[in-house]
């Protein structure tokens, strides 16, 4: 139970999802990737529109609690999280409405090396 007089502190502290992990990130900034094309019945943070799409790693966020596992009662299973850029044309083809890109935070298990496709 969170007591009333601890609420302000709890809100100002938050619940960071960053975790230390032993492994090194597999991808480097600048690398091209392709997202996986698996259809899960369970929770995932890989939006449907970004499945099986080519993108570029533009940032590394550290390892974060893996939402897919955490939602399924499997514990935190922290994994490397990247900022990935998808050019609008790659996502939408001719349906894109001009020069642009979508940026997503994607866990390593969503990503295949650009050559694996």
């Amino acid at each position, binding site marked *: *139970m*969170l*007591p*009333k007089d601890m*609420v*302000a502190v*709890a*809100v*100002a*502290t*938050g*619940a*960071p*999802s*960053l975790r230390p992990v032993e492994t090194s990130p597999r991808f480097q900034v600048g690398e091209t990737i392709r997202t996986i094309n698996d259809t899960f019945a369970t929770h995932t*943070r*890989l*939006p449907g*529109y970004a499945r099986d799409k080519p993108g570029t790693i533009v940032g590394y*966020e550290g390892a*974060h*609690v893996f*939402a897919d596992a955490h939602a399924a009662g499997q514990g935190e299973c922290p994994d490397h*999280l990247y*900022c990935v850029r998808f050019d*609008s044309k790659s*996502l*939408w083809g001719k*349906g*894109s*409405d*001009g*020069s*642009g*890109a*979508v*940026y*997503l*935070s*994607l*866990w390593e298990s969503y990503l295949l090396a650009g050559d694996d496709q």
Partner: protein
Amino acid sequence: MTAMGHDDHTLPPSSLALRIKAIETLMVEKGKIDPGAVTEIVDIFQNKLGPRIGAKVVARAWSDPAYKARLLADGTEALKELGIGGLQGEAMHILENTSEVHNVIVCTLCSCYPWTVLGLPPSWYKSAAYRSRIVIEPRAVLAEFGLQISDDREVRVYDSNAEIRYMVLPERPAGTDGWTEIQLEALVTRDSMIGVSALTAVAAG
């Protein structure tokens, strides 16, 4: 807080009120919730957090190039310098709008939003229309907000799909040279920090 409620709900408001009251009283009896904490949370989110916090950050960044550099390099740490952090702002990136790039934020999967700097989101941010369309036709959606983005400018849409939260650093309006941080802060709108509006130049004088 006053009762409103007959507008857009599929169930009578009394049913919704009964359901949450039943949950709340059971949770209090089972020792999971301190009843005083409920009003405390509502007070924080209705009266203490909000976009004036983000506006202070923007004004500081416009006024202090070294702070702006730190803010863009590591938003989370630079916000901590101003005492800003916490729930739904644990890891922050600040996105700088320039003459070449326009940034806008969304959460297509639910309605994640940077509470620490902007408070709770406006209703349209949680709407199906905004969540579905901003990623595929951002120029059309921004035009619905009255914002025209020229073809030679890139639109970057940040979808807050994981636990990283974003805030847009809007372009400083022309005509504000020499303004104090307090003056600048008053210019900054919530929508400019979401990325659905730009700040217009200020007339001289």
